[in-house]
């Protein structure tokens, strides 16, 4: 080897810098977008959420303002023009002359709000009880986990039906039922990861510093239990949307004044057999797309956040 080549080689070695360490969030985001289906799911979900949030401003009509409905337009198939305004009903109308496109956007809003609020409450209750069970152990643990086991031994739909049959229908009551059905999943998830973390040295160190139980539980223990929680949350949100739709379809969910997608489907169900398929088919497609979008995102997150599958 000549001297020149040797020196050139050295220079090349000098060029090698230590690899840049990305923040965990960036690493997860980069891994997430490697999967095309997951991107499709994310984009789809963002579209659905945007439509739901902006429903009052982007829909052709307010489907629950009776002054805007024209009975002459009742039961029109998709693509027909309105007798009253001359506008086009892209997804048809129901028998009251309500534009299905607008009704779906409003229904989506209610479905997502119900699922979102119940997620917030269920995750808060579940996380607090799950962390407490893992941190304190012993009696507290077995008491909380007994309740969780007891509840999970019954199908979620049965428990929700029991509650709603006794309480009556209403948006607040559906949210209450969803929270009661779902907190146990979060509690179980958080507990199982917290019970592993609790034995690690940093928790011991925090205890030696004399920090309060609350501070250790929520500032030290909880942040290390978040990844599995996110995965369970995406699955559970999709479940919550489906469960709410089912309950509303059965007539025990949201009231008729605030129709979610499930109730729209139920309203159109009576006309399905007479050939007016669009009244229940299109709300159903909206519901299904929402659920699939969330599941696609959740599936990818599960792979990305699973430490065993990380390179």
């Amino acid at each position, binding site marked *: 080897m000549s001297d020149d080549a040797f020196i050139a080689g050295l220079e090349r070695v000098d060029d090698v810098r230590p690899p840049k360490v990305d923040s965990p969030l960036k690493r997860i985001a980069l891994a997430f977008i490697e999967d095309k289906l997951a991107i499709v799911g994310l984009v789809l979900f963002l579209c659905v959420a945007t439509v739901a949030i902006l429903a009052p401003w982007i829909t052709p009509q307010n489907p629950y303002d009776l002054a805007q409905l024209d009975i002459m337009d009742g039961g029109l198939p998709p693509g027909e023009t309105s007798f009253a305004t001359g506008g086009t009903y892209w997804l048809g109308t129901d028998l009251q002359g309500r534009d299905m496109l607008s009704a779906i956007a409003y229904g989506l809003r209610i479905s997502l709000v119900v699922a979102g609020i119940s997620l917030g409450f269920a995750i808060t209750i579940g996380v607090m009880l799950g962390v407490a069970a893992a941190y304190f152990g012993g009696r507290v643990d077995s008491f909380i986990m007994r309740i969780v086991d*007891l509840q999970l*031994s*019954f*199908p979620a*739909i*049965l428990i929700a*039906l*029991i*509650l709603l*049959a*006794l*309480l009556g229908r209403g948006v607040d009551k559906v949210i209450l039922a969803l929270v009661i059905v779902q907190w146990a999943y979060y509690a179980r998830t958080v507990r199982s990861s917290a019970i592993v973390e609790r034995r690690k040295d940093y928790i011991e160190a925090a205890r030696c510093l004399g920090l309060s139980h609350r501070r250790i539980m929520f500032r030290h223990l909880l942040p290390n239990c978040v990844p599995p929680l996110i995965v369970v949350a995406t699955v559970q949100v*999709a479940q919550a949307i*489906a469960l709410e*739709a*089912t309950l509303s*379809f*059965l*007539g*025990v969910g949201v009231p008729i004044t605030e129709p979610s997608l*499930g109730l729209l*489907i139920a309203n159109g*169900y009576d006309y*399905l*057999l007479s*050939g007016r*398929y669009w009244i*229940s*088919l299109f709300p*159903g497609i909206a*519901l*299904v797309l929402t*659920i*699939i979008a969330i*599941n696609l995102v959740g599936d990818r997150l599960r792979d990305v956040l699973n430490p065993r599958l990380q390179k």
Partner: protein
Amino acid sequence: MIVYLVRRFGQSLLAIAAMAVLVFVGVYAIGNPVDILINPEANQAEIEATVARLGLDKPLWEQFLLFVWNALHGDLGDSFVYGRPAVEIILERLPATMELAFVALILSVGIGVPLGVLAGLKPDSIAGRSIMAGSILGFSLPNFWQGMLLILVFAVLLGWLPAGGRGETVDVLGMQLSFLTLDGLRHLILPAVNLALFKMSLIIRLTRANTREANLQDYVKFARAKGLSSRRVVLVHILKNIMIPVVTIIGLELGSMVAFAIVTETVFAWPGMGKLLIDSINLLDRPLIVAYLMLTVFIIVTINLVVDVLYSVLDPRVRLSEVKG
């Protein structure tokens, strides 16, 4: 073993007691029980007679004991709509629901296990991938929506099968059964498929995962090296070993099928106890609702208990870990 049995039995009793308290609190504490349990059309004398009979004038704890006492004697009140004991009406509907649940279970196992094995043996093939995609749809889409699509395709568009009802039934030992007549069978197919789809997806995923695992084990490699036909390897060596978790799931899911039948029965107007529950909720027939809930809880708890005990007989590790824990 006896320690385990006693503990497991105690848990079941606890579950039933907890649900009884929940239902009791719902009926007696949240609402006014006079409104809930007494027919709104009853006159003053009838109201007073029922209040006295149900003990609604007594303190709450005494009422609860009375509720439990009556429930233990199979008395959960009379239906407003039918004017007969609620338990009796539900038990009349029980065979229809059980028939639906069993046929659905057979379908989900009969189709789910072969598909799962196929997807597990060839996970990267087109067939394997489409089976998995189908199973994801099977359990992420709401049950009632799948049922409506089935009706739309097979009853409305193609006109092959009836959209609802039970069809002709045959009396067997005092139970009305549909699957013995051609007409009844035609009515049974769609609801049974609808109820089966969710469990089928679950079974497909479970069998697929287990088959993939078993396929890599030494005993399977050895069986192949011995020159056994791949049919024999799959049917005898792999299938035998993956059936243990599948059987457990089947047992546990039978209970939830009774609950899921509520949705299917409503979609297909199947006259079982689930449809009865929804009708009763709409008619505010509360004694029937209470009776349905208590009875279903009892059925599910009993099935779970039987499955757990059977499982502990088959697999000693379960009862040993339970006793230690």
